[in-house]
């Protein structure tokens, strides 16, 4: 096994005067002005082998934290984990020499004051990156024209492309990527999926995602929600996703009669509900006269919310 985690736990202590939810799905609020512990994941176990594996879950479910823990950026609170037989905590320097990682952060950990070219030159020297490979990937991702730009001037999407290029060009056996396709334009998303597909044959790749299309690349699908991690059959989830639609109702009033539907999110501005394909027409009829209704495909996080509701939230 390339990655083997046993009973891995991570929590954060939050000092705040504001009420903070105890967990992403909990309605309970933390007491004012106290320090509370928020469990991000609690005694999770999993194994990963060569190929692409996906971790999915709604925002705040702990996907990025899991990538940071596996990248040795932060230590787990308890449990054990090995990466290519090296212990994640005790042998972190060995782990660091065999992983490549990308996770979210301001400028994706490039130097904003330097140009793209200067950043590449520096990282090539320090991390021994293959400059030719970088040039090739920059062309594929459509960022080769930005070589003379200060990194801080790049758009968020282009910064992310550069972070992906750095992670891929490092050519390590284990690749840990946090939402590699989000915030990218269509062409870049397709290019990233093609690259991941190619390297997934020889390497262990773990990605987090909200995108249904990314799930199609995965050999293994893990859902992280409510501090628990479970493996699901990829095809069943894809089938489930295809049998639902998301209906967004802008500026809703209180008397829409939506009882019995799966509520995804609700604010004064918008309500989002998950509806089976068979129910869509009926609901549209019900909402006739209500002009601001949009029908779309659900993303994977919305399917996760649906599954958790089916499984009674706390014990899904």
């Amino acid at each position, binding site marked *: 096994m390339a990655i083997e985690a046993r009973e891995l736990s991570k929590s954060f202590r939050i000092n705040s005067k504001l009420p903070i939810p105890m967990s992403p799905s909990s309605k309970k609020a933390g007491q004012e002005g106290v320090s509370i512990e928020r469990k991000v994941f609690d005694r999770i176990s999993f194994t990963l082998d060569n190929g692409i594996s996906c971790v999915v879950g709604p925002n705040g479910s702990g996907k990025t934290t899991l990538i940071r823990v596996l*990248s*040795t*950026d*932060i230590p787990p609170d308890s449990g054990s984990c090995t990466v290519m037989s090296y212990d994640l905590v005790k042998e972190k320097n060995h782990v*660091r*020499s065999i*992983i*490549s*990682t990308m996770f979210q*952060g*301001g*400028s994706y*950990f*490039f*130097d*904003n*004051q*330097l140009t793209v070219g*200067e*950043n590449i030159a*520096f*990282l090539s*020297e*320090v*991390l*021994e990156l293959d400059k030719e490979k970088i040039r090739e990937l920059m062309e594929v991702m459509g960022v080769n024209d930005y070589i003379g730009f200060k990194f801080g001037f790049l758009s968020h999407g282009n910064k992310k492309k550069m972070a992906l290029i*750095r992670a891929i060009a*490092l050519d*390590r056996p284990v690749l840990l990527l946090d939402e590699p396709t989000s915030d990218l334009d269509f062409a870049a998303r397709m290019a990233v999926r093609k690259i991941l597909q190619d390297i997934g044959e020889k390497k262990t790749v773990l990605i987090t995602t909200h995108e249904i299309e990314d799930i199609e690349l995965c050999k293994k699908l893990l859902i992280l929600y409510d501090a628990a991690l479970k493996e699901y059959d990829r095809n069943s989830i894809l089938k489930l996703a295809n049998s639902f639609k998301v209906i967004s109702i802008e500026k809703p009033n209180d008397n829409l009669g939506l009882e019995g539907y799966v509520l995804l999110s609700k604010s004064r501005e918008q309500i989002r509900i998950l509806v089976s394909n068979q129910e869509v027409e009926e609901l549209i009829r019900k909402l006739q006269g209500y002009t601001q209704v949009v029908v779309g495909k659900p993303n994977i996080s919305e399917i996760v919310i649906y599954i958790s509701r089916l499984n009674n939230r706390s014990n899904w």
Partner: protein
Amino acid sequence: MPLLYAFIKRRFRVVLTQKSFFIFQLAQPLIWLLTYGLSINNALSKAFEEILGTNFLAFEALGLPMLFSISFPLANSLNMSLEFSLGSPRIIRLLSSHDWRASFILADVAVYAILSLLALFELLVISFPFGFPYSFSLIGFLSVVLVIFLSVLFTYSLAIVLSKVLLSVSSYVSLLLLPFFLFSGIYYPVMYLPRLELLISAVIPYSHAIAIIRYFLLGYKASQLGAIWSGLFNPITQIALSLTYLILFSFILLVLASRLLDKLGTREVLF
């Protein structure tokens, strides 16, 4: 060595993008000389000549590089925390297969030491029209370079160690800069301090650094080594002990800082 060279190039590039900071730091010696330096020199030169064998301006001018040895790396300490949270050091920490920590610190120290030496050189050049009584020798020059390097290393490593405890730059300024400036004898001869304060001065490594620089460029009387070592030992032993003290402190802090550097990245910077 390639790692060290890569870090030095990076730091120079980053410093050169901070043009206003860079220009201000280099303008400081000139501003100091034309205001505070000239005024106090006119008032106190006779007394200084009699007691220390040199004028006030020359005495002060050799304390000022220490100001830069402290202020350059300290001013960078906030940036450093930001860099480890948001910049390339965060990813190097996670992905480099080499031990990069000592190279990272030494590269930054080299760059700030060069900037401090530049400030010293600038002071010496603008001092010439005033007929400053400096004596130059190769050994003196090399000692000054070494002392500046060690002082920057000390400050920089100390900043890393303290950045694990303190959260804002204002804490550094009030906790470090003021007592260090005041007790190290940058602005005055420490020989007139009361006994207890003289002891504090002797503990601060910067006092030894300034004393060594003054010894090689102005002579023993102006160096204040006699006061720092309470008249014990001969001048050469005092110089050797001061240098050893500085090296020891800098080395201990370098080791501590290298160990803590890995943990700097785990602090999230909130805006």
